[in-house]
């Protein structure tokens, strides 16, 4: 074999060995276990913090709300959809069983025109066969500027939950 070919083979071998060495050092240990990615990343994604508790946790303490809500139009509406994420509220509920929870852990109580109207505003996109699984009826819609409006200046003061029970509308 000619001299220059031998040298070339040697040079290639050095580069390949260096590459493999660097790869073993730099590559994360779990990379390539399942596919072309770090297998540990799945676990890291699973470790993230939860915020929503789920209605089962809510009804553990607030049983009366469950029985209230079950028969109404809002049966399929989850508690946390209106009240906001409540996992912390549920987690600390046991610790403050006798007294009341501190204000920072209390959940939001909606009921103003702004909030109810998010779902119930009259909208052509909403007028269609939207069946409630229990009552088989269309969603009720209002025009907030016309519905029960005595005085336009009092708009902000008019609160939906004064007439409608949000848990059993």
């Amino acid at each position, binding site marked *: 074999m000619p001299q220059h070919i031998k040298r070339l083979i040697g040079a290639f071998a050095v580069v390949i060995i260096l590459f493999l060495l660097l790869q073993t050092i730099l590559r994360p240990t779990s990379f390539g276990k399942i596919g072309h990615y770090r297998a540990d990343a*799945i676990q890291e994604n*699973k470790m*993230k913090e939860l915020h929503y508790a789920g209605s089962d946790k809510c009804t553990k303490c607030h049983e009366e709300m469950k029985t209230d809500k079950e028969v109404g139009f809002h049966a399929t509406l989850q508690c946390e959809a209106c009240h*906001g994420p409540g996992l912390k509220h549920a987690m600390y509920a046991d610790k403050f069983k006798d007294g009341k929870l501190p204000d920072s852990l209390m959940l939001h109580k909606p009921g103003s025109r702004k909030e109810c109207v*998010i779902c119930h505003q009259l909208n052509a996109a909403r007028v269609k066969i939207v069946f409630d699984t229990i009552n088989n009826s269309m969603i009720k819609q209002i025009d907030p500027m016309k519905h029960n409006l005595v005085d336009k200046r009092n708009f902000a003061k008019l609160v939906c939950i004064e007439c409608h029970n949000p848990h059993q509308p």
Partner: protein
Amino acid sequence: MNLNKPNFSRRDFFKAGSIIVGGITVATALTPFDGLLFATEPPKGKGKWYGIGIDINKCIGCGNCAKACKLENNVPKDPFYFRSWVEQYTIKNDGSVLVESPNGGIDGFKQSVPDEEIFKSFFVPKMCNHCAKSPCVQVCPVGATFETPEGIVLVDENYCIGCRYCVQACPYGCRFINPEKGTAEKCTLCIHRLDKGQQPACFEMCPTEARIFGDLNDPGSKINYFLKNHTCMVIKPNLNTGSKLFYNALSPEVR
């Protein structure tokens, strides 16, 4: 080499033959590396293979899914970072299409077109399609985005270099760069909730059960029931992304 010449010699025959046979052998030997060509493996029928169903007929555009997603996953509050959002499509009598999504639908929708001019109008909730042949996975230069064996497309935050290739590659616009971390972010199908036996936040909070989610490999799952009973379609089927987000009553105007 000209095979048509009259005196096709034995040497020529062996040359042509060895090229064909050799080519086939090399191609066969490379099949284990198909993964490099298609980025992901097709489902094998073992374990879970998650799919999503959305019933447009049932969506009332309350934006609870978008709100829940933001709060559950600490998505930046600005109105242009969304992992899940709702769009209001309004098709006018003249055929023009108007798409609106003020703050992703979190604060509710208002119809800007007077009723007389509307031909039809509907809401389309959007989120990551968790494609089986994801374009975003294929373009990632470092292997920071991938598809889990359950069919969930995830981002490895610690490995992402923030090159934005995937943001451009996603045909559904489901990715963004987190302004604080500088890395790509997207729907994780709330894998942290699935791990604890909970439903993803957007499915949990949907008041009309317009969102269905389940294991496509399980014949008795909710999603399979949904697919059997509805005429479902994915968005942009022509792109062959292997989307696993199936819409019922999807209009061709939706893109």
